[in-house]
């Protein structure tokens, strides 16, 4: 019996959400009194693999020949490693979302997505998850012996244990019915779904030429940039930045909304962020009802000041 955790690398390095997943798996393993085994797909250096030990993995199985975008091959590789596992943990990346439910159907192991906390109970496994676009929290239980838990990035803290892990090389290299032809990397440096801080702009910014200050604010905060739907629709910003009901969901520690009215469809994608700040000229803007902090004011005056103040703080 063990806890198996899926870890995902991007351009050679593990994602931060993978370290969160190992931390989550490690705390879950404590509840069960067992060990954490990690699995990694694709080429990853030993130096990276060893990092998983620092978050509580005792062993990592590396399947260099498996491409994670091939969900069939990935599922089969993980299923083999999961033979002895009672819980399999995923962090909800786009790729994990393709693999975890397949694994659930293959192993007939109940899967729960959008998990936001450690299991409340382990017999049967019962956890809290987000539902209804973050408008509710659902307590769900797994009816099977094995459980698959997929938690929301940035909803569980990193816990460094100072431990180390052994590396086991797996030679599985079976392929599924799909071929991966290539990848394109988006320009933004920090992935929106994993970002701790997100600076987001709306139609109140008047035009794409005014995004310089949004990018600068993001830069000084080490944040990712996002935008409202109309901003992406008009083409001021790339679609990959669009957040909300029909766009990406962010679970940031801090979400700063600048010139965004706060329509319900926008809030649906951002309201599980821990702290939200609204900057808007209109004191009646609905965002002020959802935000923790706010400034009623003109973004073109407030944002440059904000950049200065944060620079002062960082120096």
């Amino acid at each position, binding site marked *: 019996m063990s806890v198996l955790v899926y870890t995902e690398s991007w351009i050679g390095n593990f994602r931060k959400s993978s370290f969160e997943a190992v931390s989550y798996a490690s705390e879950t393993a404590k509840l069960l009194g067992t060990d954490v085994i990690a699995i990694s797909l694709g080429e990853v250096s030993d130096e990276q693999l060893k990092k998983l030990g620092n978050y509580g993995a005792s062993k990592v199985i590396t399947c260099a020949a498996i491409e994670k975008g091939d969900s069939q091959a990935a599922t089969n590789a993980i299923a083999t490693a999961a033979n002895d596992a009672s819980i399999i943990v995923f962090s909800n990346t786009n790729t994990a979302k393709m693999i975890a*439910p397949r694994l659930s159907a293959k192993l007939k192991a109940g899967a729960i997505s959008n998990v936001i906390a450690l299991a409340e109970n382990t017999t049967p496994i019962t956890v809290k998850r987000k539902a209804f676009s973050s408008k509710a*929290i659902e307590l769900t239980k797994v009816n099977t012996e094995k459980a698959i838990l997929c938690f929301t990035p940035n909803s569980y803290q990193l816990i460094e244990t100072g431990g180390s892990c052994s590396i086991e090389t797996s030679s599985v290299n079976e392929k599924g019915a799909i071929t991966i032809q290539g990848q394109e990397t988006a320009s933004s440096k920090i992935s929106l779904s994993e970002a701790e801080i997100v600076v987001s702009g709306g139609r109140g910014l008047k035009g794409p030429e005014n995004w310089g200050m949004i990018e600068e604010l993001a830069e000084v905060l080490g944040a990712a940039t996002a935008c409202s739907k109309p901003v992406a629709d008009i083409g001021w910003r790339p679609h990959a930045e669009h957040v909300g009901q029909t766009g990406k969901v962010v679970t940031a520690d801090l979400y700063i909304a600048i010139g965004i009215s706060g329509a319900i469809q926008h809030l649906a994608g951002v309201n599980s962020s821990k702290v939200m700040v609204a900057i808007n000229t209109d004191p009646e803007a609905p965002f002020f009802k959802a935000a923790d902090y706010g*400034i009623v004011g003109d973004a073109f005056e407030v944002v440059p000041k904000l950049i200065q103040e944060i620079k002062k703080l960082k120096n």
Partner: protein
Amino acid sequence: MNIVVCISSVPDTTSKVNFTENNTKFDNSGIQFVINPNDEFGLTKAMLLKEANGGSVKVITVGDATAEPVIRKALAIGADSAVRINKVATDSFSTAALIASYLKENPADLIIAGKESLDYNGGAVPAMIAEILGLAFVSACNGMEISGRSAILTREIDGGKEILAADLPLVIGGQKGLVEESDLRIPNMRGIMQARTKPLEVIEAEGVEELTTSVSFEKPAEKGACKLVDADNVAELVSLLRNEAKVI
């Protein structure tokens, strides 16, 4: 090409979310149900493929009779026929297993679902259908070109996109980008009239196996009132974010 589009009927986002029976059931009263937005992209894509290549578009739903207005809407948009598997959809696996067993008897060339539903946000049903049927699968699919039996697909990944190739049959979890939003089909009068007479087959659910069970619901803690900071005092906001909220 025979295309099946999996449709879920979900509360419109502007709906107030409430629960009854001691917070164990979603309160349907006064709720407007709509086609899951991700499925609308899939349905329009299916219509475009049919117009280009011939074939048929069938929509399938696991739901009770309350899902019928949404099914009729899909027929009015242009699907040729519909199947409803008569069971209130609960966990993802049982929903996927029911759809998959229908598809075993009635194979399709292409199975289009949405990347996730707006209500339970499970993001699980299409991947499970693919696994049960042993098919290739692409989720968060935001582009698909088909020629003959070959498909080129793009999917969103965290930090970029990936381009994949597969032969039909396959399953996708579609989203915005599959078609442009401005191309989304909406029902017209003629479509609405025709939808009334299009075939809607109802099948009883058999052999249901649920891997998960919903226990109860709660609403997230109410936010306190927003603390407003004067526009001339941006330094105070920064200090609050650092010392009170501890997020920078």
